[in-house]
Structure formats: C-alpha cells, structure tokens
C-alpha cells in the first residue's frame, strides 16, 4: 500500500539525509542523528501501514523529530569567520494523512534554530557579562547561543496573545548551557510566517551561512527538486491564502494579519 503524500515526503527526506553534498555542510556528529530521525519516520510509516490492514478508514499518523539534545548541527559558517558562528536546528512535525479521503494535514510543527558562536571575544564581553558567566562559558567549551528563533504553529492552550496560526518568533525556551541573551519570557511578537519544513529551513541555512560554498548544491537540479516539493506542500497553501485575502478585499473584510490570526492554513489539505 502506498501513501501518496507521506511516502513522497519520506523519499525526499531520505534523499536529503543520503546526499553527500548536503552532509558535507553538517558537523560530523550530526550525520547519524539525521539518518536516525529519517529512519524513525520510515519505521512509523511502515508500522502504520501494517495497522491499516485492520482499519476501516485508512490513515497514517506520523511524527518526524530531530530532538534538541541531538540537533542537526552545521559546520562553522563561512560568513564572518572571525565570529565562528555555528547554527543548529531541532524540530518536531506531526501529521495525519487520511488515505481514504486523500487528505493530509500538518497537525503540529516546531522548528527551533540556534546560532552559536565559538569565538572567545564574541561569547564573552566584559562590559555586559559578569566574570562568573565568563567562567561558566569557558568551562562549558567556549560557546554560547547568540541568537535563537523558532517557527511553529499556534498553541491552542494559551490565548494570552493574538498570534498568527503559523508564525516566527525570536527567543523561546533556552537551556542553561546556551547562556542565551534573550529572555525566555518575552513571547511577542509572533511574525506571520509560512509553515516550514526541514528542506526549506536547510535551504535558508545554507543560503545564509554558506552562501558561496553551498551555491553549487543549491543550483543542482536534485536540490531544486527537493525544495520545490516542499514549497508546493508547505508554502503554496499559505501564499494562496494570502493572495486570496489581498486580491479579494470585497469578500474578505479582515486585514491580512487578522485573517492569519484565525485561519488554519496547515489544516486538512486535499492531495491533488
């Protein structure tokens, strides 16, 4: 039995993790965790397929995780090498595919991106930091999170602030070993942002942190094929919605931002 969407997506993630050019941008310790995350997704899909034999309505619930304790770490950025910037990302995407109805939905996703520096003069500035913090940073291997952000979807159990269904947020829940400047409690603003996936985010990281080194890979038809698949699945429904709102001011009375606060553009999407 073949699931139309998730099988295709798994194939794309497998191609990403098996691609030697992409792997060359990763920290050697990250190659295994990426492979394992993709292999876990495959295992989940296979087990769901077996369960479907006894189900009336065929469906597959899946989850793709790169845990925060084994994030996908890239090599030191080629940009501003004196800053020794290194980016890592962790993620969780949860989805549901209703095979019988030919629909899929992204139920939940969260991509957390951290930008570390490993340069002594960057991670510790005596004008801003206490000596104690400086000592702790040096003891933990001279690295510090200089910036962090995440892409996720609206948390339904909190209504403390208006937030676009799919958004981007600077900050988030940092851990002690990050020594992050940004305060955990600052939850706003949440910028409207299209849903992200591992392939789209990898493209963003390569283009931002390895603009010239990754040029050849990003120009490769193989890479473009991967990115276009993700664009079609994750970006198109979002931008179609935006386009509809902007193009039809007479039919949609709310502003684009208000509209994005209420609409679930990751919801059940028909597979064409």
């Amino acid at each position, binding site marked *: 039995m073949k699931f139309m969407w998730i099988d295709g997506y798994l194939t794309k993630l497998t191609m990403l993790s098996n691609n030697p050019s992409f792997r060359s941008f990763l920290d050697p310790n990250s190659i295994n965790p990426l492979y394992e995350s993709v*292999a876990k997704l495959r*295992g989940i899909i296979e087990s769901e397929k077996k369960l479907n034999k006894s189900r009336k309505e065929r469906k597959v619930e899946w989850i793709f995780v790169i845990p925060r304790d084994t994030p996908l770490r890239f090599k030191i950025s080629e940009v501003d090498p004196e800053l020794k910037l290194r980016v890592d990302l962790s993620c969780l995407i949860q989805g549901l595919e209703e095979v019988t109805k030919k629909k899929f939905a992204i139920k939940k996703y969260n991509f957390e991106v951290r930008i570390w520096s490993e340069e002594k003069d960057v991670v510790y500035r005596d004008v801003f930091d206490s000596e104690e913090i400086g000592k702790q940073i040096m003891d933990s291997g001279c690295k510090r999170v200089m910036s962090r952000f995440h892409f996720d979807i609206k948390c339904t159990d909190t209504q403390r602030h208006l937030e676009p269904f799919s958004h981007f947020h600077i900050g988030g829940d940092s851990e002690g070993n990050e020594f992050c400047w940004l305060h955990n409690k600052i939850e706003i603003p949440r910028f409207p942002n299209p849903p992200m996936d591992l392939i789209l985010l990898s493209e963003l990281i390569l283009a931002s942190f390895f603009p010239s080194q990754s040029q050849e890979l990003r120009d490769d038809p193989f890479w473009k094929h991967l990115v276009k698949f993700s664009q079609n699945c994750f970006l198109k429904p979002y931008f179609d919605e935006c386009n509809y709102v902007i193009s039809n001011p007479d039919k949609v009375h709310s502003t684009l931002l208000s509209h994005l606060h209420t609409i679930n553009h990751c919801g059940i999407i028909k597979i064409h």
Partner: protein
Amino acid sequence: MKKILFLDDKEDDRRIYKKKLERRFEVLIEEIPVSKEDHQKIIDKKPDVILLDFDLSIPNKKNQKSSVSGVPLSIELRQKIPDIPIILFTKKSLFNIDKFSNIKNSLSCIDSVIYKTDLSSNSDYFFTEIENLASGYAILHKKKPRSTSNLFELLKAPEIDSDRLKQSIPPESFHDNSILSPSVAAGWIRSILLKYPGILYEDIYAATLLGISKEAFQKDSIQNFFSSAKYSGIFSPPEGRWWKSKLIEISVARMNNEERSLSLNIGFSKMWKRIKKEDLEISKCNSSEKTPADCVCYLLKEQTTIPFSLLYPADVRPDVMDKSRISFKAIRESNDYNLDFFDPSQKEIIKQIRRKKK
C-alpha cells in the same frame, strides 16, 4: 566439507595444523612451490580456500627453496584464481612490528590474516570464519551478480539501504564494473561493510544506538525482538552484525508518540519498560558515567559520549559510515593511538587529559 589448501614451509607446523584443520575441513597439503609449474599445481587442486604461510623460506626435503614468499605468491594466485579466498596464516610477531599498519588492509590479494596461536586458542571461531569466507566466495562465484542490486540481494540488504550501500563502495571499484568480480566484491563486503560501523552494527554499536548496555542487548529477549534485523548475507562474521535501519524500524514500530519524539537511545528503553515491564541496563559513558552513551570508543570498544571523546580519523572509511571516536578514558589509559591524527586544539585537550591522570 570445504577443501582447504595449506601451504607452509615448516614440516612440524604442517603436521600440527593439518590435524587441527581436519576437524572441520578436507586438508590438502602442498609442498612449497619452487617453480611456476608448482603454482599451476595449486590452481589445479581447486581448493575452496588457500591458507598460506607468510614465510616460505625453509627449503623442502629436496633442499629446494620457494621461488617466492607468501605475499608475492598470494598476489600471483589472486590474479590467476580471483574466485578463491586467500588467508595469510602466520606467527603473530611478524605483524606486530608496526601497530598502526595493517597488512590485510594494504594488500587486496589477502582476504584475512589468521595467527597460528589464535587458531590454537579459539579454533571454532576461526574455523567458522574460514568457512564463511569460502562459502561467501563460492556464492559470489556461483551467482555472478550482474549489477550492484544483484550484489545487494546476496547481502539480503533492506531496499532502503541501497543508496548508502552504493555510497560505501570505493569509486575505483566501479571502474570496468570490477565491483562485480568476486575478489573486489568480497573485499568491499569484508573490509568496508562488515568492518566499519554505519550500515551494519556489531553488538556494542547496536546497543549504543538503542541506549542500552552491550550485556542488555545480548539478552535473549532483545535478540529475539530484533531477530529480523540480524545480518544473514554472505561473509556473515561469527560474532554477528545488525542492519541499523532495521533496528530503528523495529524499535519505532512498538513506540508510542511520546517515545517516538525522544532520541532512540532514550525512547527504546522507555518503550521496553512499557511493553515488557523490564528495566534494561542503560548505556553508560566510560569516561564520565553519564547516561545514555551515544557513541563507541574506537580503541576500547566501550560505550562513551560525544562530549567525552574526540574524533579520531584513523582510517579511510567511507563518509557514509559512522565517524570513529576515541574516549577520554582511552586517552588516559592507552598508548595505542596516533597523535598525528589530531589537530592542534585536540592535541591540547589530550595533553590536559593526560596531565589530569597524573
């Protein structure tokens, strides 16, 4: 019973090892080759495997000396009969001169090196290895794979591993389709695929992947749970190997969403506790006692963690294989590592670790 051709210049050794080998093999003894015609005699015997002494310098009864020693002879035999595995059978001291060199790796004409003393102490293990070697070659010869896909079928490889298997084949092996010749295919399977962890795992690596100790992994209940992940293709080594992809697939199939959202080395033991009501011993770092471990020390073959180990690129394993690491414990306790493999910052860390030892 496999036919083994045993070439040794020492009469005593011929007698002693013939007796041992005859427990599992049909043993053909040949006089040391003194001429090209003698080489042809070896070929004409059609053995399943050739066991060749390194040093053939002692003259035979007619006081004739061998025209060549073991290594050049193996090169010649490999060219003439590439379908027959060749094992160098020798005294350990000869190869212990430089602990960082490995003759088996540098000579593609030799499939294995077995030390005479090892055969005395652990004969069953080595007999099985010799049999596997002979069987593997025989299958490659008989099936004659026409493509890499055919070759992967002989490994009984999961389809999903095809890309990674291809990436693990040295590029030069694809030249003129040489990967499909028995000796090149055997060399890749034995000296890369089975040797380096990445696609196939030994017990210690499999246990680390799952976040449990090697002893816990070797429990019958765990071995049965993962039985379909066990490697059963050609050249299967006596101590066994596991398909990493299958270990993961089998594990996640029984996990709930919460367990699936964790790293495998945390989620597996939680799942096991839930479904089997059994606590498994968690993998522990040999250098810090932290749990779970997430890698294996290349030198000590013990579980360790990334923060308490250093990358140690001691060999030329393909990129698709796991990177080798050396634990802080090995740095403290062993002298069997080569400082040339470390960069200046790593050398500084090594100095600090060794200083702390004192």
